[in-house]
């Protein structure tokens, strides 16, 4: 009797296919019955069921952190092949494909110039702003509304952020007029610390001042738009900064100027 039952032990493949809803009616009914009547099958089924995990959720952050702006620029920079001169098309496109694949194993960012993606400005400095913008675009006023707003904890948080980035962040310097500071925290981008100081503008919603270490040298403020928000970014000797929010570009520029002056003092 026992032998007979064990002869019916379905393979792991069948049990997993059953779990995944990949079996058709008759087969599914057979496995279902075996699980109910055979302890050994039930035990194996229970064991394999432990591997049911929140796979979908676990991979969501990877999607959220994809460098969307950069990838869109790459796509936008691809030549519209069909409008090329038909005689030269075959060669140039094959060459282009070879170059694109070549890059994958060379893996050197500098070589991207070869592909003439000038408009995609693929220097690394842009990447972090894209990620920050994408991240902040997930914030709603409720994300920040319930955070404590006492000066003492903010000062301590700013101390942490400053320590991680190697700069001094006095509360006064990063305070924005009429826009309460909600939280300062250390995040991470590509293995390096990223300071995020979040604010909640009563009118325009979440805002953030973000800081990374940067060796690209001082640059005066510039503006751009990402994910429907305005961004002002600049850098000094050792750090890159960006202020981002749904405020108008002019307003954001004024606020950024205040922070920049205060931090440089």
């Amino acid at each position, binding site marked *: 009797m026992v032998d007979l039952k064990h002869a019916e032990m379905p393979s792991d493949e069948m049990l997993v296919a059953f779990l*995944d809803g990949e079996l058709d009616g008759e087969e599914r009914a057979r496995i279902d019955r075996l699980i109910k009547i055979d302890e050994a099958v039930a035990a194996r089924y229970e*064991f394999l069921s432990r*591997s049911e995990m929140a796979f979908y959720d*676990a991979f969501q952050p990877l999607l959220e952190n994809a460098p969307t702006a950069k990838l869109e620029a790459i796509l936008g920079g691809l030549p519209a092949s069909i409008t090329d001169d038909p005689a030269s098309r075959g060669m140039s496109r094959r060459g282009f494909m070879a170059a694109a694949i070549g890059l994958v194993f060379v893996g050197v960012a500098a070589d991207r110039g070869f592909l003439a993606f000038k408009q995609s400005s693929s220097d690394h400095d842009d990447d972090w702003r894209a990620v920050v913008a994408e991240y902040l675009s997930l914030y709603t006023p409720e994300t920040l509304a319930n955070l404590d707003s006492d000066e003492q904890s903010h000062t301590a948080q700013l101390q942490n952020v400053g320590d991680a980035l190697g700069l001094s962040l006095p509360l006064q310097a990063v305070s924005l007029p009429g826009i309460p500071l909600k939280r300062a925290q250390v995040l991470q981008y590509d293995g390096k610390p990223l300071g995020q100081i979040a604010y909640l503008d009563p009118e325009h919603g979440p805002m953030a001042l973000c800081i990374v270490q940067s060796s690209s040298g001082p640059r005066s403020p510039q503006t751009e738009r990402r994910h429907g928000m305005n961004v002002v970014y600049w850098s000094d000797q050792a750090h890159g900064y960006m202020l981002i929010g749904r405020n108008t570009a002019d307003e954001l520029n004024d606020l950024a100027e205040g922070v920049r002056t205060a931090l440089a003092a």
Partner: protein
Amino acid sequence: MTIAHRQLSAYSRATPDASSAADVRSGPVWTEAIIASEHEIRASLAQYLGRLWRYGIVLSRQRDVADDLVQATCVRALERASQFTSGTRLDRWLFSIMHSIWLNEVRSRRIRMGNGFVDADLTLSFDGEHETETHVTANQVLRQVNELPEAQRTAVFLAYVEGLSYREVAEVLDVPIGTVMSRLATARAKLAEHADPDVKAKQMKGGK
């Protein structure tokens, strides 16, 4: 076992074909049809960039390589726009293109060049200090999947994250459906060994 008998629809349109670039387009009718589909594909590609990049990360475990894989996939998809069967799923087609580029042109080359693989830590979660419980669990799942061998990792990703059916996974990976089943079964047994028997996730499949 019924599923194994299902015929895999030929995925020959995604297989490498050296002479595809400049041959067929002679008459004006052809050209017009190709313009239409290339424009369509270019327009649709934009919405899949993130998911392609994520698959690039799952394959290569490196951001730079993932960027380049997306780029190469876009180039090839536009090049082969005429081979895409409208009415079928574009995302599946793109996954299969990326997989074939990875397998045939990138991975093998990297190994030959002695680069091997950087076992990059996939800690792409942002928050170090304020990790919620969900994040911790998510990171554990990510880590366990990341530790699976490539063949199992890609099957798990496509089936359970992207929500592809066994048949679709087989098409993307260009292997028989039985191979997909055995990769998933081996992966599941491995994941089950490390799993806490008391914790069962509520939501597993997402894409369907």
